[in-house]
């Protein structure tokens, strides 16, 4: 089954990105496809390559990037939400790309399920 993922909040302040990550990982390990994760609203902050958590904490920016590399997940940051919040090519982490909101609608159209995580 194809799952599309929508993430509305950044890392650290809300648990949304953590839950989405564990869901995505579990879905992939069960053999499902997760062709696209879309980052909207403050979710764009998950793609900030300067993020540097404490050594004893998880690093969501890296976790998402690694998952994308290993499992071919398309990590899309909304261009409009990213512009407002200062997530652009200059500070975009590995594994993410910037594109339009149409990519969210397409994920909804093309996946069997669109899962949303937010606050």
């Amino acid at each position, binding site marked *: 089954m194809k799952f599309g993922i929508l993430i509305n909040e950044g890392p650290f302040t809300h648990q949304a990105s953590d839950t989405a990550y564990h869901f995505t990982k579990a879905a992939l390990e069960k053999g499902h496809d997760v062709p*696209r994760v879309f980052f*909207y*609203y403050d979710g764009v902050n998950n793609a900030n390559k300067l993020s540097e958590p404490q050594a004893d904490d998880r690093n969501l920016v890296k976790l998402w990037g690694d998952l994308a590399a290993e499992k071919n997940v398309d990590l899309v940051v909304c261009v*409009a939400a990213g512009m407002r919040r200062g997530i652009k090519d200059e500070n975009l982490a590995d594994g993410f790309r910037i594109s339009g909101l149409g990519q969210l609608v*397409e994920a*909804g*159209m*093309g996946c069997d399920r669109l899962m949303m995580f937010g606050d």
Partner: protein
Amino acid sequence: MAEYEFDTEGVKKTFTFMNRKAPYGTVYALEVLETVLISAAFEQHANIVFADDGVYQLKAGHDTADIGMKNFSPTFGIIEMEKEDADEDEDIDMNWRIIVEKESMEARGLTEDDFKVDVEVIAAAELADIIDASDCVIGG
């Protein structure tokens, strides 16, 4: 990065855009409406639902001059136009409904006349069926 191409040719789904937050205290209202507009380019069906404090998003007369924030409510005019186009043009297979939950509206002392656009006022039990029949739910 693994750019993915969806084959969405001929796909027709029903999106529910859920608006439950008061306007301006958070930005969700503005950014959900941007998604609604984009979905029009893909000719998808949409339930644009306002419940809880989301009903205040529709209130006529937003005046944000003194808080210095962008007034997003003109977007409703565009949404209404898109909906009218779709309703009138037989070549566009796109059914948009702008729905207010009756219970949320009444709890806030509001009536249909308070809103900036024409809406369907639907009671919770019936609205639950409408939401349940949709394919994707976006918003908060």
